[in-house]
């Protein structure tokens, strides 16, 4: 169990600034996901916690104690790498045992732990195999067992699922989630995949260009994005962002659009458009619609009856509309604020 705190940390690679003056607290026992596009600094933060890529300046605290000078092996953490980083010349057993041996765990205890954890990851029958004889998923499990067997206070995972195929990835997501519920330790998980972040996280830390854009639960980030970046990063497809004549931006999720063939009654944001493409995904259908204003928006609804090149009306209820100010920061949500009401009204098609 451990809480982790970054205090004014900066990281430079030569003269290249990756992170500057970042502050963040990772809560004890939570599954925290650092998510962002590649190069945003999320792995850099993870490596700071591990001690294998120390901060250029600032402090990293674990349970209130500065661990900046503590060697990686003494930090009570375990890490799972994207390429698994298992030792190819050792058997599965030796891979799991290596860390325990170095920590001078007695032989009997070691055997008991290897037995227990190899069963948890379902690798008990393969203990004498070499990694080269195993599949990607199995290697991933060794990496997990090797991390778990140390009973660390913090689990660090750097895109652990990105080398697996889609099906295995989905099942490992659930397994990791279950593992977290069972162990109740702090998990810090790095990914560039917003679906992974949304599906696994208790807390999402959304990063871009070395800066934190938003910290919140998946619900918060989805329903109340802090800025245009957050609105467009989370969600598949991302939120539609429409430029308003006064420089503000309006946004709505593809899922909150209502589609009609005829002009809808009532108020709310409504536009005429024509369907450009249609993707039937099973339970939902995704349409790309070109609006009368020339801008294309995405729409995702259950109704699959609409066809390409069909003229349609889209309506978005006021409570689903988001507004962003000139600098892209979330301004208001729901009915248009006084300042914008007239502008929004003028954008509707009649």
């Amino acid at each position: 169990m451990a809480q982790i705190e970054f205090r004014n940390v900066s990281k430079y690679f030569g003269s290249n600034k990756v992170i500057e003056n970042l502050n963040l607290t990772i809560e004890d026992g939570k599954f925290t996901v650092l998510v962002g596009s590649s190069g945003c600094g999320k792995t850099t933060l993870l490596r700071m916690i591990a001690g294998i890529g120390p901060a250029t300046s600032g402090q990293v605290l674990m349970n209130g104690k500065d661990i900046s000078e503590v060697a990686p092996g003494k930090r009570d953490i375990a890490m799972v790498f994207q390429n698994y980083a298992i030792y190819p010349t050792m058997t599965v057993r030796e891979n799991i045992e290596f860390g325990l041996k170095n920590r001078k765990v007695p032989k009997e205890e070691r055997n008991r732990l290897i037995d227990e954890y190899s069963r948890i990851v379902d690798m008990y029958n393969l203990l004498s195999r070499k990694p080269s004889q195993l599949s990607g998923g199995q290697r991933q499990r060794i990496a997990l067992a090797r991390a778990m067997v140390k009973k660390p206070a913090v689990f660090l995972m750097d895109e652990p699922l990105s080398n697996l195929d889609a099906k295995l990835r989905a099942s490992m997501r659930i397994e990791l989630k279950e593992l977290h519920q069972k162990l109740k330790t702090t998990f810090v998980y790095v990914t560039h995949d917003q679906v992974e972040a949304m599906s696994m996280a208790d807390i999402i830390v959304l990063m871009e260009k070395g800066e934190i854009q938003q910290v919140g639960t998946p619900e918060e980030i989805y329903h109340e994005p802090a800025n245009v970046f957050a609105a467009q990063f989370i969600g598949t497809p991302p939120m539609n962002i429409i430029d308003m004549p006064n420089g503000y931006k309006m946004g709505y999720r593809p899922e909150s659009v209502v589609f009609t063939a005829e002009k809808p009654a009532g108020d709310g944001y409504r536009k005429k458009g024509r369907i450009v493409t249609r993707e039937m995904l099973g339970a939902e259908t995704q349409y790309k619609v070109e609006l009368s204003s020339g801008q294309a928006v995405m729409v995702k609804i259950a109704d699959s009856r609409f066809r390409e090149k069909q003229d349609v009306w889209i309506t978005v209820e006021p409570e689903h509309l988001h507004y962003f100010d000139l600098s892209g920061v979330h301004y208001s949500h729901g009915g248009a604020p006084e300042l914008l009401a007239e502008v929004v009204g003028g954008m509707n098609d009649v």
Partner: protein
Amino acid sequence: MQKINLTVTDRKKELVGTVISDILKIAVMLAFVFPFYWMLITAFKTYSESVAVPPTLLPSQWSLEGYVSTFNSGLNILGYMRNTVVVTVSVIALQLIVMVPAAYAFAKRTFPLRGLAFSLVLVAFMIPQQLTYISVYIMVSGWGMINSLWPQILPLGCDAFGIFMLRQSFKQIPDEIVESARLDSASEVQIMVQIMLPMCKSAMVTIAMFSFIGVWNAYFWPLVMTRKEEFRPLTLAIERLRDAEVGIRWNTLMAGNSLLVVPILVVFIFASKKIIEGFTYRGVK
């Protein structure tokens, strides 16, 4: 129909190509193997047969005369052999002790002036050994080591080529494996010996093999670095087998040569697979 005919001609062409390339391979192989074969059968011929014209491809009478006269030549062949073995084993051991940490540091650690230090290694790699004879001789004789095996061991204790090659091999190991070992509380020595070395076994074997051949066959270096027979290696003894007054006794000379060469062949046969692997990295994907 036409399509099938085409395939048959293609196959014929392919077959002819294979046959020609196989013949060439065999020819090249014979060119390399024949001198060794000639050395070995000459060693087992009698003196008169070894100088007979036309020469025989197999001894008409197998004889140990060559070996007997090698050991009866008045030279302490076993003493020379002992020197060769001691020098070779010591050089390889010393080289590994020096090279592994150096290569590890160059490949996986950052420290001030690393680039400069590594370029010095490369410079050492490029300087011909012949240029260093005199200065090394003066240095070791200053240390009072000329009457010992040390001048044949110490100056060769660090091999720039070995450091270079091992570094390349270490560099191919993903950093995450080293970091993972650090998180597993492994010391730097453990990382080197238990993680990196087993992954670079082939490169190690290759480097050791090159050193082995170089030192085992060394002629000029020990000739310059020794003054007394008792510290000289087998290569110098073989040279002295030619000093017979009655002209060169080919069977004796070849018997001596075979004593020199056979150990290398044996080592190579055992290590050849690793040596070939040494040039291709096989990691876990």
